[in-house]
């Protein structure tokens, strides 16, 4: 099996396009700028080995808007500590909900972070009586998403309205699932302890072009690590779109 091409431009993410994002209440500053994966194009050629390695840039890119939209996320953040595991992100009793069914997908979102102990996290992630969150961006410490391999975890976050997670580090299965589904952007911080300098409710911006995370409320800016190997996959729009591009699977119904 050979992979002869890689992407220089990002196509529309088929997986993401197919999921429905609940509308976030506008009473807060949660403005959602559409994020285009094209930003990651510059990372497209990092550390992939193909045999034979003949990487040709795409010459006929898929249709993309002529003016690239801003590649930022902006809104309120919700701050967490270290080792937030998948049982806290989405408790196991809700795993009977099947993420590929649209109505159950939405329900999953309504339960996101319901596993957090209220003694440590008194501010609810989702207001009682609603099914989506006002916090578009999660700030977390180390090893975010540890525990189970359940894809329900990033899916629940995405379904609830989270656009990006900005964490010190990730557990590998969660990171991979985020990339594969395209539900949330898993971004990593360069320095430690950033979550300790943020408070739930701070207005923040994630700038993917400059690779910075800005906390407007606290007046601080932090460096983000480049998304790296996940780039080409998110670029293509998830592993399925990526595989179609490289000819591994033929176009689907």
């Amino acid at each position, binding site marked *: 099996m050979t992979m002869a091409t890689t992407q220089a431009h990002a196509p529309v993410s088929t997986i993401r396009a197919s999921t429905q994002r609940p509308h976030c209440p506008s009473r807060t500053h949660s403005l959602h700028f559409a994020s285009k994966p094209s930003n990651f194009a510059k990372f497209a050629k990092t550390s992939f080995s193909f045999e034979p390695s003949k990487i040709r840039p795409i010459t006929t890119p898929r249709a993309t808007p002529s003016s690239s939209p801003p590649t930022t996320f902006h809104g309120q953040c919700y701050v967490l500590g270290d080792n937030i*595991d998948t*049982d806290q992100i989405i408790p196991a009793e809700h795993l009977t909900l099947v993420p*590929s069914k649209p109505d159950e997908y939405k329900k999953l979102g309504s339960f996101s972070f319901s596993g957090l102990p209220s003694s440590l996290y008194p501010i609810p992630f989702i207001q009682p009586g609603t099914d989506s969150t006002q916090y578009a961006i999660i700030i977390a410490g180390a090893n975010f998403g540890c525990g189970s*391999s359940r894809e329900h975890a990033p899916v629940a976050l995405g379904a609830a309205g989270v656009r990006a997670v900005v964490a010190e580090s990730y557990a590998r299965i969660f990171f991979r699932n985020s990339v594969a589904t395209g539900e949330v952007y898993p971004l990593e911080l360069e320095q430690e302890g950033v979550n300790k300098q943020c408070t739930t409710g701070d207005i923040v911006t994630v700038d993917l072009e400059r690779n910075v995370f800005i906390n407007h409320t606290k007046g601080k800016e932090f460096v983000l690590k480049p998304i790296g190997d996940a780039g080409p996959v998110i670029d293509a729009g998830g592993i399925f779109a990526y595989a179609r591009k490289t000819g*591994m699977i033929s176009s689907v*119904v």
Partner: protein
Amino acid sequence: MSSKEFDPRQVPPPSFSRSPETRSHISSASDSKSHKLKEEVIKFLGGLEAAVDGGEGEGEHAINSHALVEPRGYDSARVPILQFCNEAHSLRLEDPRSSVFQQTGDEFKPLQPDFVEGNPTRLAKNCEEDFLRYYIYIHSLFLLPSLNSPVLLMAATVVPPHAAFFSAKKEIGARSSFSPSISAHRCRKHSLNKVLAVMAPTQPSRAPATTGSVKHGMTMTEKILAKSSDRSKLEPGENIWVNIDVLMTHDVCGPGTIGIFKKEFGQNAKVWDREKIVIIPDHYIFTSDERANRNVDIIRDFALEQNIKYFYDIKDLSNFKVNPDYKGVCHVALAQEGHCRPGEVLLGTDSHTCNAGAFGQFATGIGNTDAGFVMGTGKLLLKVPPTMRFVLDGEMPHHLLAKDLILQIIGEITVAGATYKSMEFVGSTVESLNMEERMTLCNMVVEAGGKNGVVPPDKTTFKYLEGKTSVNYEPVYSDESAKFISEYRFDVSKLEPVVAKPHSPDKRALARECKDVKIDRVYIGSCTGGKTEDFMAAAKVFLASGKKVKVPTFLVPATQKVWIDLYSLPVPGSGGKTCSQIFEEAGCDTPASPSCGACLGGPRDTYARMNEPMVCVSTTNRNFPGRMGHKEGQIYLASPYTAAASALTGYVTDPREFL
């Protein structure tokens, strides 16, 4: 034993069959019949010898390690070998009409249903291989003094031969087919797997493994991934497309995976290989939750539609025993049903898929999207992890179990200590562990953030696999010159029983230092701590104490097989009592229906779920907040010894109080 001293006539003959029913058949055979058997075997061997030598009597042989597979003269010996198989079978069953193969000229087509499962051609070839190896072994005994091949040494360790058998060596008669009741049965189940595993199989399922020369040393994990991606070498950090040998899913992630598969590949798409997908309902089974029940229906519909070969169904939820296909916890079922094989790549939609690394394979957990992708293509893009080596040496203290070892390690490196890395477990202690203990070790690799865990396969592995799988496998081992990212050494003889305190698997503490922690219940179950060996261990403690438990003690066997073992196997030192009897006398709850149970909470009506805040000592794998149900619950992860000891006192207790 050195080849120079060896005299085949002094050596006992092969025990032709390991199956109890065949052995008893042989012993009940009349004298004249067993005498006839012997005669025939000797005649056959003479004929084979002649065939190999081209009829020129004893001489030099072209048998070298490659020729194990293609010895000179095998072609001409092949037909009598297979005929022999047929006759052996019919003699064994005392039914002249019963045969293994249908012979048409030189074509041998397998007939027995057991043989026909899977790829008939491959199975027929398996049989041929077995006979070939047997033949080489027998032959090499005759020629031992003139042979220097390592083959015969390996063959010799497999089965001890008989002196009397070869006493008539000189009577080399004409070739004939005959009938010791040997490998017909062995062919099916008890093939010479040990030998098979060490020598290259004749027909690997993919291009010959290019595992690279020792110039570029690779670790076990790297080698497995290289083999499975048709690469001669690779390095940690590379992203590679890997061919998947087995994909597992269950009732929680199966429906989502299926949804993605159908969406991406089409509603009428077919899975890449109906024999390589194993669907095992196990998580939310014995519940009245409608969605949970519906999820089992969804995977059943898919299994039927795709004609999935391995679907361990359950329909009657009120009584697990009337569901013959139902197994229980997926990771234990995978092992028990022979789906875990050295050198292979196994992916599962469950984080504890790393459990199977105990068999020396690459096994890791993936999400629904990745699994949907594998379902359609049989491949996945994986990043090669660097390997951390854990050398465990020293005699295992009698109060310690593999659970203590892995908790020790996780406590040492923390829950993110092995993130994106492979964990390789070696050392004399690891070698002394049985398969279930090795599984416990690899099971919790994910709790340290590890991508996968591996234990080098050895005779313990091969013995466990005997009779469980007819698929050829090829174990690989780390090169001497392999590079490890780090190495940790433990002197196991100095370790003590440990627990992981709430709320993290790396909050390690000595069990004896937690003796003031009052507990409300004990839970013994899950893939980590609900296997037969785990229950045996708990039973040992109850037996040693003779007293009753002070807190509710919940027992959830991982699979039907484990449940049966609890009710049938005698506990050593108990005077013939079974685990279930000991548990009953100790006042434990009756062993429950096999499933994942309350390890991860589950629907509200799950047996032993923690619905109120309480303190529990558990043989499970995670203790994050809310893991077993209630967010304020406190879970102490422990070995079965420690769990049982704690049940007896009502406090977290070091098992040395009883052992």
